[in-house]
């Protein structure tokens, strides 16, 4: 029987052999990625002197948008197809401070370690070990940032009821939604000062469903910003961030 990492690799090799490149280049998805970059810079305090490591970088679409705003970006991913594409895009765009490697980790001390839609793909054991690994990758004062689907999200409940086939199309067999507070607790248990923040409500799912409709994404993002100010609704947000700093 194949293990979870092997299944994940096979899925992502297929994903990054055409579909992802086309999908991630669509206007709404690019607007979403640009929003993510602005958000990451704001909540982590990363800037032009920061060294950034991205775990599970995929084809590097977010990392290549981030690279001009920081000193250096290193992206690692298990998928050779994704890394090939990320390197080709970096060369095509003339981005010299972004480097992409096959694998799960990298040497060095980083000011920011980020993991965009990555933790929820990890098997339990790897997820449990990740905070300790991240600690060894961070420079003094460094910060960890992750973004993952929440198990409390309303959009997941609605999606499973209305379009279960579509939901499965964008999911690997082993990925799962994560409970935000428990995910932060894993980092606290490893000595991080971790907090969670809800990222969105309907805007990211809309960008996935209607990737060509940038105006629709922007309108939904504005609605999200308003909805996320309401505490009772915020808990049902779609994706959550963990922002964790070494406390000791």
């Amino acid at each position, binding site marked *: 029987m194949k293990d*979870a990492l092997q299944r994940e690799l096979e899925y992502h090799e297929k994903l990054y052999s055409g579909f992802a490149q086309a999908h991630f280049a669509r206007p709404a998805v690019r607007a979403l990625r640009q929003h993510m970059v602005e958000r990451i810079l704001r909540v982590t305090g990363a800037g032009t002197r920061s060294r950034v490591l991205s775990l599970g970088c995929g084809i590097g679409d977010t990392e290549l948008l981030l690279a001009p705003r920081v000193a250096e970006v290193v992206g690692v991913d298990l998928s050779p197809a994704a890394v090939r594409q990320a390197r080709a895009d970096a060369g095509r765009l003339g981005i010299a401070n972004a480097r992409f490697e096959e694998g799960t980790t990298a040497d060095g001390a980083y000011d920011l370690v980020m993991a965009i839609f990555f933790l929820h793909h990890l*098997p*339990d*054991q790897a*997820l*449990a070990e990740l905070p300790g690994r991240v600690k060894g990758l961070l420079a003094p004062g460094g910060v960890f940032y992750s973004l993952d689907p929440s*198990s*409390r999200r309303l959009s997941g409940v609605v999606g499973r009821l209305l379009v279960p086939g579509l939901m499965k199309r964008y999911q690997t*067999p082993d990925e*799962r939604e*994560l*409970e935000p*507070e*428990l*995910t932060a*607790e*894993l980092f606290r*248990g490893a000595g991080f000062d971790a907090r969670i923040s809800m990222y969105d409500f309907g805007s990211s799912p809309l960008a996935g469903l209607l990737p060509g409709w940038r105006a629709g994404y922007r309108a939904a993002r504005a609605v999200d910003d308003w909805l996320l100010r309401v505490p009772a609704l915020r808990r049902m947000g779609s994706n959550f961030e963990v922002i964790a700093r070494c406390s000791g």
Partner: protein
Amino acid sequence: MVSSDRIFRVVLLVLRVALGAVFVYAAWTKLRQPWQLFAMSIDAYRVLPYWAVVAVARTLPWAELAIGLALMAGRWLPVASTAASLLMMMFLAMMMRAYAAGMNINCGCFGLGDIISARTLARDGGLLVGYLFLTWTSLSARRKAA
């Protein structure tokens, strides 16, 4: 010649120790990992609110350990075997619900990577039969003694 009563008592002893060891093992697999991972397994069933998920994740492994040790030691058998049967019934009901709903989740029974399947349902169903048998024998013995 060995009497059938003696054979029955030996079989019962082996069954009690083995089923007690199952609970101790289940507790050990949960206690050796960060409690948050077991909490995530509970949360994946989408049944409990956050505060209850945390409460169950923090206490259930210790309850399993206590029940398992009591069964192995042969102490407080009516209470321990009844608690074991009730817990197994609850686990099995939750697993059957998740399986019927097509949820591809860890059962959380014995630590990590134990996805709910027909095999896990059959395994836990078989264990439930064993715990119910222990409950019946321990309650019958108590009634006879009274």
